[in-house]
């Protein structure tokens, strides 16, 4: 159980900045997920922690000790590569056993122990029947699991997992994002894990750090992130379909504040009104997760929140839910997530409720969430 800290870490490749001033601190035994689109700097961060990429600026600290200049072999971390990095000349068994046979551990493990460990992790990852094969005889998903196995077979200070289950089929991915988390928790090994999939991040992460273009956008538990997205980017990346955004203006009607967007007045809760009152800028962005918009039958029963009528342009079936694309006719479109049982067809008129508590308000320039700015 170690504690990892990054202090203002920057990574440049030539003129390209991959990671900029990244600072965060893991807790002991925690699973921290780096979430972001491709090119966000996740892999670079992992590689710097592992020691195979040089840190351009800043410090990487493990248990209080700066490890910038410590050889990767000395850091005692295990890493699963996104590109698998399997040794083509070794069998699956030897690939997994490779770290156990390193000079550092050569005398620690007997052949039998190695065998037991390899078989255990192989069974966990459902590759125990492939141990005799060479990497080139495996499918992409199988290779990824071998790579993961090679990482998990060790008992290092830290696991670094770079999109470890991205290329597995749906069933296995579902199982592994559940069981990987258990594996890690049982061993209490501090882990940094990267993914582009917010569901995966939410599922496995004790906390999630969201990266965009090398910059940390937000770090927190999934609830913090989901309920208080720090900026429009976070709102976009932790929801599918992405958060609905619209430009809005702050409107004062006596003491009460409203947000006006495309001719619609949005009612606001009192705390939100208080927050906005101090705002100098009038122009803001309103954001609502599609899953937080509700359908209502009767307009009169609604006491709080805003009701908007629209026409369904298009319905996307997603198995257990449906996504409706709604147009209000005033150049104002949004998406709503519905249950599969809602019988909505293109052309239907529907009535949507934007509750006061589901509205997020972002600054127009900085795109930061005004409501949770500290």
């Amino acid at each position, binding site marked *: 159980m170690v504690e990892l800290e990054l202090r203002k870490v920057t990574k440049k490749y030539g003129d390209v900045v991959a990671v900029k001033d990244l600072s965060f601190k893991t807790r002991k035994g925690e699973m921290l997920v780096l979430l972001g689109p491709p090119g966000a700097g996740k892999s670079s961060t992992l590689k710097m922690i592992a020691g*195979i*990429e*040089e840190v351009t600026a800043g410090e990487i600290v493990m248990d209080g000790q700066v490890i910038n*200049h410590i*050889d*990767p072999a000395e850091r005692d971390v295990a890493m699963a590569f996104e590109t698998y990095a399997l040794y083509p000349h070794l069998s699956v068994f030897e690939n997994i056993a490779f770290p156990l046979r390193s000079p550092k551990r050569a005398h620690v493990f007997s052949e039998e122990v190695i065998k037991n460990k390899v078989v255990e992790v192989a069974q966990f990852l459902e590759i125990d029947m492939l141990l005799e094969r060479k990497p080139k005889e495996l499918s992409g998903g199988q290779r990824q699991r071998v790579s993961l196995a090679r990482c998990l077979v060790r008992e290092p200070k830290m696991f670094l997992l770079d999109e470890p289950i991205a290329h597995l089929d749906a069933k296995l991915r579902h199982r592994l994002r559940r069981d990987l988390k258990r594996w890690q928790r049982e061993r209490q090994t501090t882990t940094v894990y990267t993914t582009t999939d917010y569901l995966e991040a939410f599922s496995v992460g004790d906390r999630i750090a969201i990266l965009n273009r090398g910059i940390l956008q937000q770090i927190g538990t999934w609830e913090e992130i989901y309920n208080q997205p720090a900026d429009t980017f976070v709102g976009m990346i932790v929801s599918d379909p992405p958060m609905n955004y619209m430009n809005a203006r702050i409107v004062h009607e006596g003491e009460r504040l409203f947000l006006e967007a495309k001719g619609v007045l949005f009612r606001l809760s009192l705390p939100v009104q208080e927050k906005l009152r101090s705002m100098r800028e009038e122009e803001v962005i309103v954001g609502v997760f599609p899953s937080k918009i509700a359908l209502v039958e009767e307009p009169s029963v609604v006491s709080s929140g805003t009701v908007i009528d629209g026409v369904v342009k298009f319905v996307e079936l997603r198995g257990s839910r449906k996504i409706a694309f709604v147009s209000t006719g005033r150049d104002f479109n949004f998406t709503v997530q519905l249950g599969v049982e809602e019988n909505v067809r293109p052309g239907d008129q529907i009535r949507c409720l934007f509750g006061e508590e589901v509205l997020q308000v972002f600054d127009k320039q900085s795109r930061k969430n005004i409501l949770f700015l500290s």
Partner: protein
Amino acid sequence: MELRRSFWSRNIALLLFLPAFLLTVGILVPFGYSVVMSFTNFNLTTGTSDFIGIGNYLKLTRDPEFWNSLKVTLLFTVGAVIFEVGIGFIAAYLLNLGLLGQKIWRTLFLLPVMLPPTVAAIMWKLMMAPIQGVFNYLLQLVGFAGSEWLGGSSTALLSVILIDAYVFVPFAGMIFLAGVQNLPKEPYEAAAVDGVSNWFTFRKLTIPLLKPVILIVLLFRIMDCLKHFDIIYAATKGGPASATMTLSVQAYYHSFRWTNMGYAFAHLVVLWAIVYVLSYFLVGQWKKAVSEVHGG
């Protein structure tokens, strides 16, 4: 970028490199020597080696033999390269059709490229011998007049090109074959579905895609032909008259027959300069073509 720590790991790149570097510098020394000596009247018979500035080079410009050998060198190069690229292309096409026994044909096809050029020259000289050679025998058998082959000034250059082609057509063919085999299949399928004619596809797609490979063949063959020595030396020694007298052979005459070392070096330095500039250019073109096709 790698992490660098101890002296060993910091300088490992250079340390690993050092022996090769020293050897290379060692190889450069004779090059330098040659260049320096090309500015002298170094002559083995008279024993002189006085600095005469660009005297040798001035003499070259006035020397019809030099111009002739430059011409022969270029003719040989152009002829051999056209021949080898042309036949090589056809060979690659034929060997890629998947005709019966393709593997055997491919193996057989590449055998000549492993021949020591001198052995090839001797083999062909034997077969081309005008009086007792098998070529003239076969030609006469089917009613053609025999040729003087290497012994005729109009046929000698062609004959030497033929020998060179024998050895190096497989080289061109193999590389083209590799190029053709590495052509991505999908763009052709896309073109087929899009209803694009074969000729349009060949012109706009195949040729540009094969450009790096074509350039590599050109690079290696042009450079080899320009400096060519082995085959011509073994087959004709530059004759008849000066019909096959390339720059290398001319330089050989000047040095190891007539002892005019300084003058011979001037020939070689000019040849080297041509080769160096051309190879620099072609390598650049090749890198460009590669990046156009494969990115980077």
